[in-house]
């Protein structure tokens, strides 16, 4: 199995993602420059965190027009796995691969902190090896992470169990105090209707080393690798 990490001008978590795939997943991984369009050799691509195009206009709004994004759409339509982390989540929403939008945080601040996130569904290739309603500790680092969507979209996300992660307290309680950015219903991550595209604001790739305060993110990448191995 082969992974690709897409690099936009302004991506800054690309090396973290690369490190996790090569060291913890132990699989080949390439950086893919945003002007490249050939994704045919990859089984999964990661759209990493950062500030693509300086977050100009809206976070993720300009990255959506990079040549690689048409290829990512085709890649996703073929059922291959796409993981968008932080700015990657914002880009997936702007590109229409995931519904809704990520707005300025409720309290307007850029938040850089460790948060607790509850696993809401294990029915995705990214989370099937996680325990349902278990709590993962992962960092967030964003100013635009406030997930919004209309009522019809929210109803659809809820009914089809497409909300994959929610901000919670350490005991898994979904409180308003545990919601760092004002996201609707504490939403931290969602998937598409085919469940092969996942976007989340927390950074699992920055939570893979005990030295960095948490290694809870490894499970997500193990799930991902396990799903690809099973499909091979």
């Amino acid at each position, binding site marked *: 199995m082969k992974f690709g990490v897409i690099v936009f001008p302004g991506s800054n978590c690309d090396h973290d993602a690369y490190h996790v795939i090569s060291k913890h997943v132990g699989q080949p991984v390439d950086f893919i420059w945003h002007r490249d369009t050939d994704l045919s050799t990859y089984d999964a691509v990661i759209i990493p965190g950062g500030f693509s195009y300086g977050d100009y*206009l809206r976070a993720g*709004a300009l990255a959506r*027009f990079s040549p690689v994004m048409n290829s990512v759409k085709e890649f996703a339509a073929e059922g291959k796995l796409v993981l968008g982390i932080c700015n990657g989540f914002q880009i997936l929403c702007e590109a229409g691969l995931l519904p*809704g939008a990520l*707005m*300025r945080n409720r309290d*307007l601040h850029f938040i850089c902190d460790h948060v607790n996130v509850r696993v809401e569904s294990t029915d995705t290739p990214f989370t099937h090896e996680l325990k349902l309603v278990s709590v993962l500790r992962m960092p967030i680092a964003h100013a635009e992470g406030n997930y*919004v969507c209309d009522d019809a979209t929210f109803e659809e996300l809820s009914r089809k169990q497409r909300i994959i992660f929610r901000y919670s307290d350490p005991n898994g309680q979904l409180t308003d105090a545990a919601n760092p950015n*004002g996201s609707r219903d504490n939403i931290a991550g969602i998937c598409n209707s085919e469940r092969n595209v996942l976007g989340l604001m927390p950074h699992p790739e920055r939570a893979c080393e005990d030295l960095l305060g948490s290694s809870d993110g490894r499970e997500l990448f193990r799930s991902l690798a396990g799903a690809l191995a099973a499909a091979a």
Partner: protein
Amino acid sequence: MSVPGAVATGSKRNYRIERKAHFDPLAIVGGTDTRSFMKAKVYVTLKPSVLDPQGKAIKHAVELLGFSGVSDIRQGKYFEIAIDASGNAEDARADAEKLARDVLSNPIIEDFRVEIEQ
């Protein structure tokens, strides 16, 4: 080197550009292009149903300043676009509206309004 709206001074080795006062970038869009351009003004605003924490913070500051007659402030974005005016104003408007819909606004959270200035 020709930079419209700029004046070159000094020797070649010590080249610098002085901007004219009230430099208007829109006045030079197209550079040496001789086509005429008209100005499209695009206003992007949050949908009424979407909370605007920045607008709320600004309103709070306005209240601290002593203004009591302000009931609401919503923050938005404003764009000026120089559009080829060789066609008619309707074509320019259609182009500007497409830009506003596809790029400048996110239809999930924002509305837009276009004005054409000839």
